[in-house]
């Protein structure tokens, strides 16, 4: 029997969202919806009961059960219980008069409820955590950001601010939340309740908690807060930048809300904060969000596709598109390729004089020192050309005087050419190409 695959969670989630939307539309409580909610809860509890019943039966049947499986089952049961509690609280919460009067404040109690619910999960086993609930209630501001940050804690990347639904939303159809500057710039959003150490991520906090006692080492304590958390009634929520006069500030005439907390953070840092991150490669570009710097550093120095107008491109096709578009713009080669000047003295000159005066060292005394040019030069003067060579002793020639001859290094290495040849032969008519080369 596999509990994990039960699609209960998803169904519930969908239904609750509908439910939530219905609750928000009506000013007074809807008995019909409430009835539906209660029957759903009943059904849910019934399900859970049968599940626990099954576990009990299994324990009876099989004597040897691995601890891991037990823990897993326990975790599942507790997660389901949590969701039931959340459901219960939200159903009750929808009846509270304050939940509709002010959208910005309505959020606070609900958040608290939820965080309370989360903790409730642990309370069942570890009553000590009950303090945490109090702490969260007291540290309202931090708790609020804690909760919301937790929802996006796994998002390492900056979110695109453009992809906001806010443009489509009517100005009253969502609630607007405005964090204060200090909250936005706060380094840590998760705090240890025992030693008050701050953490950026909830997961890090949980890791830290292990040092405070064995009770924090249980799988349940270490587990990521259940995803069921998101099944709370979702109110469309948008954020406002605290900087007055900014278009993202809710006072602005053409207010454009921000979608998530992360958007708020990135927007605020980018627009209203000092750019303190400097690219170490170019020492020029500055960023206020470290992720922006990282993105830039990935490409910094790689804009080696240069146009004569000074524009640089990271891709060749972009450069060629640019050049094709404008009159007079030319691709510019990297500067190191075009350096150099014609060497003085001219190697060719040196070569020819050298070759011309090369003397062949005849080892035998009789013919030593014969200059090959002289021998050839005598040809025209002779009546019988063939006779003039007869005395020459070629066997005695010795040509070892060549090491100092100039050699012009070719720019093309043998290896690279042979590569080209082998590649060309893979083209269909390699034969003609080989001939050509």
């Amino acid at each position: 029997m596999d509990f994990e695959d039960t699609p209960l969670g998803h169904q519930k989630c969908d239904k609750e969202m509908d439910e939530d939307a219905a609750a928000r539309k009506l000013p007074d409580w809807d008995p019909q919806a409430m009835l539906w909610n209660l029957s759903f809860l009943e059904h849910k509890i019934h399900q859970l009961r049968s599940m626990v019943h099954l576990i009990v039966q299994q324990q009876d049947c099989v004597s040897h059960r691995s601890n891991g499986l037990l823990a897993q089952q326990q975790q599942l049961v507790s997660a389901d219980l949590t969701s039931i509690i959340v459901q219960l609280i939200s159903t009750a919460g929808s009846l509270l008069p304050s939940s509709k009067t002010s959208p910005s404040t309505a959020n606070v109690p609900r958040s608290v409820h939820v965080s309370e619910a989360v903790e409730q999960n642990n309370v069942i086993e570890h009553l000590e955590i009950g303090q945490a609930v109090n702490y969260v209630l007291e540290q309202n501001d931090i708790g609020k950001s804690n909760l919301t940050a937790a929802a996006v804690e796994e998002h390492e990347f900056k979110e695109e601010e453009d992809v906001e639904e806010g443009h489509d939303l009517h100005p009253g159809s969502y609630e607007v939340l405005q964090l204060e500057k200090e909250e936005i710039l706060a380094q840590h959003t998760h705090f240890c309740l025992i030693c008050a150490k701050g953490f950026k991520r909830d997961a890090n906090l949980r890791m830290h908690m292990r040092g405070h006692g064995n009770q924090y080492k249980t799988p349940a304590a270490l587990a990521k807060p259940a995803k069921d958390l998101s099944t709370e009634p979702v109110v469309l929520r948008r954020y406002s930048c605290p900087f007055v006069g900014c278009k993202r500030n809710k006072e602005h005439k053409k207010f454009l809300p921000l979608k998530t907390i992360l958007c708020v953070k990135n927007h605020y840092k980018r627009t209203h904060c000092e750019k303190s991150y400097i690219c170490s490669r170019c020492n020029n570009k500055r960023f206020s969000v470290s992720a922006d710097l990282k993105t830039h550093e990935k490409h910094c120095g790689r804009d080696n596709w240069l146009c004569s107008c000074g524009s640089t491109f990271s891709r060749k096709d972009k450069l060629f598109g640019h050049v094709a578009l404008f009159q007079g713009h030319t691709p510019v080669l990297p500067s190191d390729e075009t350096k150099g000047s014609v060497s003085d003295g001219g190697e060719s000159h040196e070569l020819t004089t050298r070759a011309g005066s090369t003397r062949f060292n005849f080892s035998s005394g009789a013919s030593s020192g014969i200059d090959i040019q002289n021998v050839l030069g005598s040809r025209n003067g002779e009546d019988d050309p063939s006779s003039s060579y007869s005395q020459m002793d070629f066997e005695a020639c010795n040509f070892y005087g060549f090491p100092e001859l100039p050699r012009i290094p070719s720019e093309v290495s043998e290896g690279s050419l042979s590569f080209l040849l082998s590649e060309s032969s893979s083209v269909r008519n390699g034969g003609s190409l080989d001939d050509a080369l």
Partner: protein
Amino acid sequence: MGRFKPFEFLSDEIIFTILDSLSSSPLDLKSFSLVCKSFHSLESKHRKTLKPYSTELVNKILNRYPFVSSLDFSLCPRVADKTLCLISSSIGLKSINLSRSKFFTHLGVSSLVSNNCLTLTEIDLSNGISLNDSTASVISEAKNLEKLWLSRCVFISDMGIGCIAVGCKKLKLLDLKGCFSLSDLGVGLVAVKCKQLQILDLSYIPITNKCLPEIFQLPYLKSLALVGCCFIDDEGLANIRQGSLSLETLNMSYCPNVSHVGLSAVTNGVVSLRQLIIAYGSPVTVSLTDCMQRLPMLQSVKLDGCQLTSSALKAIGDWCISLRDLSLSKCVGVMDDGLSLLVAKHKQLKKLDISCCREITRLSMDSITNSCTSLTSLRMESCSLVSREAFISIGKKCHFLEELDFTDTEVDDEGLKSISRGSRLSVLRIGICLNITDEGLIHVGTHCPKLIELDLYRSPSITDLGIAAIASGCPNLEIINLAYSTDITDNSLLSLSKCTKINTLEMRGCPNISSTGFSAIAQGCKRLTKLDIKSCFNINDSGMALLAHFSQSLKQINLSYCSVTDVGLLALASISCLQVVTILHVDGLTANGLIAALVSCRGLRKVKLHTSFKSSLSQPFIEHIESRGCSFQWRDKPFQAAVDARSWKQQLEATL
């Protein structure tokens, strides 16, 4: 003092006009300039183009010919940057050819271009495997450049060609054949920027469909070559809505992914197309011929090496247009029925190439001779099923034949007699025709005074008699191949020495030839540029000495198996323009003699040697020779004995 000087009454312009008509033969110009001082200076002023043998004297040459605007360095294997600097500073250069030269860099080209940036119109840098993008960016300064050859400049990339595309807007001809480093981007930019382009060669560039739309929008494009562009396919071509309307020649050989679909898309509405070459492509089907039929100006079609069906040939025959030039060489599936139907309709055909269509017989030949009476060129190498009588009818019906290739056919003396009646014949190839004897050659010799090229490769029945008839009857002979015609003796060469225009002589494997006959050739044929005397065992040093003395324009020689020694080779080395030498299995040659010859022969570009010499030449020496622009080719062929023509042909047929 008071002598009458008739030439003083001629103005310079008139003499220049006379010189213009002399310019086809450089020797005549030389003789003219040697008449007197004033002729010398006039000739110097008149000379516009130069083709120097060596760069050593470039300085003096430029002083003598101040108005030279076109330099051809194709005989100089080594052209250094310094030479180019020297040239660029002294004359107003219009055209330069560096396609066969090495050892210059972008610096030399830079000085060349920057000093002549407004006058330069033609640059040939083909085979510049050491040239890179910097060279290309330097070339782009030549604003008025109209013709640029960069074939096989394998290291010029998109960036370089991009510079050229932007800089040289007046380009009319661009040859980028085999520039492997280019891609769609560079080629596309060329097509966007150089709107004046008329001739574009993009063969063997790894371009894809992406750059095709720009290319086909070039407004003045006349000739386009896309040979071996195997990434181009039907899909890409189908995206071209309108083919270039000015296109006259399209070459899409070796494009395996292009079928009739792509071709009909490209040629759609291209009414000006005259020549279509789709050799070695996808099989020729009826649908392919249908799309060609829609081209009203089409005159020349080359389908070499394609797979054909008789129905496709018949479909070509049904076209309403009449082709002038058709090439079906090495096509698979050319049968008598298809070919007969084809030629029956195309009565205007002037050139027909059916080489290696081995299936055709006399039937096809009869319909060819009956309908295509205005044929000027007929190539039917290896059509071995065609009977002897067919050749007689060719001679009877086709009176305008100028070029005939009957290599490896059954043509006999009667056939030659019939053919030689048409006195226009200038090229005749009858190699490996075992039925031919002196009798046939005598007919050719007596009736074909315009003969320029004669190929008698492996004709075992030919003797001195036949050659004598050719030599006396064909004074214009320039190219003759006597290879493996084993009965040839010195007498043939003595008679051939009267043909002073001979520039190419092949007589490998003629064992009866000695230095006596060879000397006669050397003295008589002073224009000899290519010579093959491989396996002429009796040719020795004395022949070489005379050759070296008289044939000062010899460029290429094959000496393998000859009795030449160090002395002969050294004599040969004094020929200043000698470029290619093949020396294999020459017993009399020692390493030291070889070294001496290599050192003294400056113009060498290629030397083919036996591997056994490799160890006796020191590495620094080889490097030194290579630095002059000469490349070594080492061969390890075993010593081969001569084989007579009949058994050779049997062997050949056995391997096929």
